[in-house]
């Protein structure tokens, strides 16, 4: 079993008078993300007047305040208190979230067409993005890296870059994380719903636009819907939330087209299950907890 990462003391910083920024670690780890999640979830439940928004991030988090109603210094005191209780992730700390099936067509024709147009901006112009990722991560084949990305689920650590874009970190120890650099120079185009990868993070691009992440495939279902026409978007324009556990599942073209048809006629719904798990347990035995999470999802 890999050794548990010890977090340094959290750093509390004022982002001017309207934001408090808390850095849990300079390095990315599940430990740092879980600690931030525990504190931000607890803060959300307290529903403190003057907290405008709570923004979890990868190894940090940020709270937006209305300083006319809440002194940022008082907020920091409360955050320190939460850090010393739930932020240490006691063994019995339970995270309530949801686990979601997210289908992805890897090696799809659309991102393939796009990546071929931008080969001159890539580290390895003679390979596809997936071939490159497989090679530099020590896999014998593209299938090997796809299997690694789809076998264990991911946690949404942060939304941003553009509205609704989920950053996802795989629920596996650091030595099993897949890592790829961003493009040498960013592309001017990325298709909507591209499954991308940069650093140790997987993303689904909510909308078409510029991008620097490697392009591995395409999701048939949206993560962002300004028209809020699909049932999963009834309450929010963005589907994923921080803390969501997403299982990226490789699908074939037939399922891709069938799912697209459901999206088009407005009937598509994500497969979602409510779930509880202990972050401390996951850190101790990720494979066992991941098996349970997938078991709940496909039960």
């Amino acid at each position: 079993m890999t050794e548990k990462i010890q977090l340094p003391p959290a750093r509390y910083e004022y982002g001017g008078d309207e934001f408090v920024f808390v850095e849990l670690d300079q390095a990315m780890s599940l430990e740092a993300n879980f600690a931030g999640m525990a504190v931000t979830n607890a803060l959300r439940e307290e529903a403190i007047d003057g907290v405008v928004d709570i923004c979890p991030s990868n190894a940090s988090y940020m709270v937006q305040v209305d300083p006319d109603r809440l002194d940022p210094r008082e907020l920091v005191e409360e955050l320190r208190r939460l850090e010393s209780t739930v932020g240490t992730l006691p063994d019995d700390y339970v995270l309530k979230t949801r686990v979601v099936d997210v289908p992805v067509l890897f090696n799809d024709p659309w991102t393939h067409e796009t990546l071929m147009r931008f080969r001159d901006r890539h580290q390895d112009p003679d390979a596809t993005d997936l071939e490159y990722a497989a090679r530099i991560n020590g896999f014998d084949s593209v299938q090997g890296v796809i299997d690694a990305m789809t076998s264990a689920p991911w946690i949404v650590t942060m939304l941003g870059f553009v509205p609704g874009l989920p950053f996802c970190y795989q629920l596996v120890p650091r030595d099993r994380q897949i890592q790829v650099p961003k493009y040498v120079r960013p592309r001017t185009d990325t298709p909507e719903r591209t499954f991308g990868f940069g650093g140790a993070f997987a993303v689904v691009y909510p909308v078409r636009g510029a991008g620097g992440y490697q392009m591995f495939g395409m999701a048939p279902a949206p993560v962002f819907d300004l028209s809020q026409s699909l049932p999963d978007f009834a309450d929010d324009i963005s589907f994923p939330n921080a803390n969501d556990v997403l299982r990226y599942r490789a699908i074939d073209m037939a399922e891709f087209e069938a799912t697209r048809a459901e999206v088009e006629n407005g009937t598509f719904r994500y497969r979602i299950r409510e779930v509880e798990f202990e972050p401390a347990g996951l850190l101790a035995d990720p494979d066992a907890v991941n098996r349970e999470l997938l078991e709940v999802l496909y039960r």
Partner: protein
Amino acid sequence: MSELLVRAGGLYTTVQDTGRFGYYHMGMPPSGAMDVYSAVVANMLVGNPDGAGVLEGTYVGPTLEFTDDRVVAVTGADVPVTVNDEPVEPWTAIRVGSGDVLSFAMIRAGCRAYVAVSGGIDVPVYLGSRSTYTLTGIGGHQGRKLVDDETLPLGSGDGSARPGAVVPEELRPELAGPAELRTVIGLCSYRLTEDALASFLGTDWKVTKDADRVGYRLRGGKLDFTDREQPFGAGSDPANVVDLGYPVGSIQVPGGDEPIVLLNDAVTGGGYATIGTVISVDRDRIAQTKTGDAVRFTSVDLDTALAARRDRRERIERVRREITR
């Protein structure tokens, strides 16, 4: 007819209010008037609630024709304003009627002019705000800047406007440069060397041509990062950190040479080290600096930032007393 005719859209005119809040966590910035003080005071002059929809014009203002009796006020940048080609006073509630045309000449100082009309610019409220966020095309008037020859819906005023009301000179913002931007240094400022941080605060930075509602890119110096082995997940560039949230007003230095101050329409997070945050009150000030102008950053603590905010509130309340007297 309760509408306003846009004869000319100007360079970049959008509908804004005091912003859209509660969506930062999903990556949506607040948008809203860049110079909040001027927008709120414009609303006050025409008897609107502080957060009513106003027009924010940039550099070249719009040309507007009224279709019924209204009270209008122009605040913000120093720019000659006319009604039917006759000069009118800025920071003043002006009575207009059907067929009257409000136009702008060339800006003398500042960058953004605000136009409030009694009843407010009554575009649909989207996610709690009338503010335009053009990058995603939401809010405001069809999610975009105004174009020539179109109409905007106006709400109905409550009759509380007081034509002739004037904001006294001393309650109008200072527009002469260089702009002093009070900044709470911190966040990831540890990434800069001590010399670089001193140089950041000691430099007169020049606003580049790309400065817009997303952010202000500045030029004028070079800032060095401390050497370190990059942490896991941070990326290889010394300016990179593990992706994190960016406060509105925060400053980053992607290449070490061009600091960027992130503003109302900016990305909410990313992988560049942030080194401090311009205090909320001084976002009004940077909003009134234009391409080519100089800005400098002064380091302040949170107390100063909060005091400045209280001071702005008091100024707003003084304006309210002055114009309802």
